[in-house]
């Protein structure tokens, strides 16, 4: 560890990136024009390139570096630093914010949105800079300041379109829940700094026998769990992701959620030993988030809401990895620690990549067809062929299928679970044994869900006239998606490339795992994965080539699908997303509580009628809102104090003052 004040090149690169991100807020403030928007986006992309270089360099450098800022804050000096664990979380931050800024130029052009573009670009830059600072902060106060800036930056950028009521509601729900989370974080950091120092403790420096350890665990779980969108604290997530502009959704889902995961990993890294129930709790919460998240996703009709529920599912997978690692730590199994945490961290990166890709793709689709309703789309693939193929790549990755990156991280979590079953004893065996089918269920349902999305949106023919238009997205929207898909492919095809990076980051979590690249390579069959993925890719490419060659010379003719002799088929008779998912939604009926309206059809010539189904946010509407309603009723007597009469408010102050005076005089 270098001494404070000494700036190493990696740290300098990252600080330069933060400054560039912050500078990207400026150009549009001076002049609102397309040129300013482009300058701003270029600054962000430059920051991302510099930052990614710095992060990759830091990942391969096992030492931690820090810098004391010459900036007097209350509660001690501000310190920023970099270690491999932070560097791993910096990777998605830089990649996604850079791609999103570039995408924003085409998606939210200054000419079309003259009133909101300044605000959106400003808060995007602020959000990026604060995200980077959160990961690099080394003391609680700086961390909380950056955390709050991040919350506000994402609030203001997600409510860009605030003339719609649903956007405002989503924003306010987000603002309330994020601040409740921050309140718990205040408690967490007061507990951590009980010995007076607000600097973060070094890795593995605290004992789980610490009397406050359990309180620290619970506050970290709640405070960071709200941000990560862990069930059942996820209530803000679906509406916020659905309402934000698509590239902001990409950042929120890809990066902002991961800050919750970063916080948990960072806090757990302070402990040298952990009790078994910590890991068990996280594993169980991960299973719940994964299965319930994907079940809710199946029932959604709104493309972006569906993707939002998949974020919850993937957070579940990440938490399962973390849970396996903590169980490994508690039972003393190095292999489980390594596999679980490496899977968790790789899935953080992977989910950021493919979910950002999917949100950007969804943005292009919504831009083209003008609706978010899946059941009104159809045949988009013919009009947006490049977007369709990129979206397909994202779908394959998110389902955890080879040859893309989702498969690599999920197999690590699987292997960690198998280790737990094979080599542990006691309750750890049962839990890890249960985690395997849960993970498999999540994967299977995700495949079903993305078959539904891809089939309904991109295949077939347009279902409605007014949403049948649209054209391929411009280059500055396709390039970021291409970059993200490229990263997905590289990690999927050549997973051994990320092994040293992961080993470095895992060592940042627990120092006993230092220099574990070889161990990781021996535990995970990277060569086999690579071979499998490459051969699969080759098969697909060859197959496509053969089909294209065979059909290219043939004559094409288009005709409606044979409708069993029905004479007047319409595009609306295609399979809808709702009908596709109906069976699976029925299996989860007790959980999802779908609301259906299906009128009974009577007579030989029934009148025109409608069918509608809707899945609400059950946890919010069934649990939190009734609880708040109850609280509201029970606190009615106290609310009488809040009557709006100015004079009586002043009387309260006066009475307090006089009482204090009298008490002082008498004592």
């Amino acid at each position, binding site marked *: 560890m270098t001494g404070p004040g000494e700036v190493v090149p990696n740290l300098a690169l990252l600080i330069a990136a933060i400054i560039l991100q912050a500078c990207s807020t400026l150009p549009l403030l001076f002049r609102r024009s397309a040129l300013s928007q482009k300058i701003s986006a270029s600054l962000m992309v430059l920051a991302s390139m510099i930052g990614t270089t710095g992060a990759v360099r830091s990942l391969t450098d096992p030492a931690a570096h820090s810098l004391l800022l010459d900036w007097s804050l209350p509660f001690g000096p501000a310190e920023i630093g970099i270690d491999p664990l932070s560097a791993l979380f910096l990777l998605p931050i830089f990649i996604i914010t850079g791609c999103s800024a570039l995408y924003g130029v085409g998606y939210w052009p200054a000419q079309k949105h003259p009133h909101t573009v300044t605000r959106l670009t400003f808060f995007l830059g602020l959000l990026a800079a604060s995200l980077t600072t959160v990961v690099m902060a080394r003391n609680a106060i700086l961390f909380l300041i950056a955390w709050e800036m991040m919350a506000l930056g994402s609030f203001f950028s997600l409510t860009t379109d605030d003339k719609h009521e649903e956007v405002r509601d989503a924003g306010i729900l987000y603002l309330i829940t994020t601040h409740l989370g921050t309140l718990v974080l205040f408690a967490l950091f007061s507990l951590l700094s009980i010995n007076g120092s607000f600097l973060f403790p070094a890795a593995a420096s605290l004992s789980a026998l610490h009397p406050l350890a359990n309180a620290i665990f619970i506050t970290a779980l709640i405070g960071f769990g709200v941000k990560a969108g862990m069930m059942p604290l996820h209530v803000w997530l679906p509406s916020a992701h659905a309402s934000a502009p698509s590239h902001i959704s990409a950042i929120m889902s890809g990066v902002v959620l991961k800050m919750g995961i970063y916080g948990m990993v960072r806090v757990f890294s302070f402990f040298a030993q952990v009790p078994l129930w910590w890991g068990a709790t996280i594993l169980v919460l991960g299973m719940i988030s994964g299965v319930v998240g994907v079940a809710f996703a199946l029932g959604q009709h709104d493309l972006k809401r569906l993707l939002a529920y998949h974020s919850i599912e993937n957070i579940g997978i990440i938490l399962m990895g973390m849970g396996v690692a903590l169980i490994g730590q508690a039972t003393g199994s190095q292999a489980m620690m390594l596999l679980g945490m490496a899977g968790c961290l790789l899935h953080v990166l992977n989910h950021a990549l493919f979910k950002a890709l999917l949100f950007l793709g969804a943005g292009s689709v919504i831009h083209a067809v003008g609706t978010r309703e899946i059941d009104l789309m159809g045949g988009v693939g013919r009009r947006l062929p490049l977007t369709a193929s990129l979206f397909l790549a994202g779908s394959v990755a998110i389902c955890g299928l080879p040859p893309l990156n989702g498969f690599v991280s999920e197999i690590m979590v699987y292997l960690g679970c198998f280790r737990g079953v094979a080599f542990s004893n006691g309750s750890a065996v049962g839990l890890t044994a249960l985690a395997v089918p849960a993970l498999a269920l999540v994967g299977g349902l995700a495949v079903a869900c993305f078959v539904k999305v891809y089939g309904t949106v991109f295949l077939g023919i347009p279902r409605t006239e007014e949403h049948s238009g649209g054209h391929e997205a411009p280059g500055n929207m396709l390039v970021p998606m291409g970059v993200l898909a490229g990263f997905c492919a590289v990690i999927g095809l050549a997973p051994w490339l990320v092994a040293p990076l992961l080993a470095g980051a895992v060592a940042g979590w627990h120092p006993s795992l230092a220099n574990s690249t070889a161990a990781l390579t021996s535990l995970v069959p990277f060569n086999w994965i690579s071979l499998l993925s490459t051969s699969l890719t080759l098969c697909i490419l060859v197959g496509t080539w053969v089909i294209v060659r065979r059909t290219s010379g043939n004559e094409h003719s288009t005709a409606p699908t044979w409708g069993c002799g029905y004479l007047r088929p319409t595009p609306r008779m295609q399979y809808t997303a709702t009908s596709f998912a109906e069976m699976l939604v029925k299996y989860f009926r007790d959980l999802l509580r779908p609301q259906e309206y299906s009128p009974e059809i009577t007579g030989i010539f029934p009148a025109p009628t409608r069918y509608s189904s809707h899945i609400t946010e059950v946890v919010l509407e069934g649990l939190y809102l009734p609880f708040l309603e109850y609280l509201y009723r029970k606190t009615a007597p106290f609310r009488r104090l809040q009557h*709006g009469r100015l004079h009586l408010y*002043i009387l309260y102050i006066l009475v307090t003052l006089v009482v204090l*005076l009298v008490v002082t005089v008498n004592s």
Partner: protein
Amino acid sequence: MTLLADQLLVLSLLINFVVLGTSRIAFAVRAVAVQGILLGVLPALVHPFSWHLVGIVCGILLAKGIIIPWMIMGAIKKAEIKRELEPFIGYTSTLVLGAVFTSLAFMFAAKLPLAPEHSGLIFVPASIATLLCGFLVLMSRRKAISQVIGYLVMENGIFIFGLLLANAMPVMVEAGALLDLLVGVFVMGIVINNINREFSSLDTSRLNTLREE
């Protein structure tokens, strides 16, 4: 010189009662202006001469004695109100309460652990008494303009306390206090304007229709 200062303070205490007891708003504003002038002269009496002090005294005389009262008089003319007709607490009762608070302030100040050179002066009790009287005006009056007056009286109380704190008050502290006053008056000016426009009256008790159900 401290004797003269004490006499001025007693005078300003009496002015508190004038403000508490009158129903005519213009008269109350004039009384507060006089109080401001008295307090503006005070630093010149208790601190040794310096050009800095001259600046402070002139500034306070100008702000507390002339500009702010003049602004409020303008507001009164614009809003066309002369009297506070229905106070929440009657004039006699406010006077009695004012007397009680003033004596309470003297009792309290006697118990405070003050520096020995301050313990003989009536700066502290006068300050607390003026503060409490300002509070009383704020609380008992219905019209927004009367509340501005209460605010000014309170500010005067704080100012008296400030006289003790430093031998020569730094300009920054003084400027801060005056700025505070100015902001307060501005805020109240906006409130007055808006209440007037919204309810066609200056009755602050109507504000409770704005509360959240």
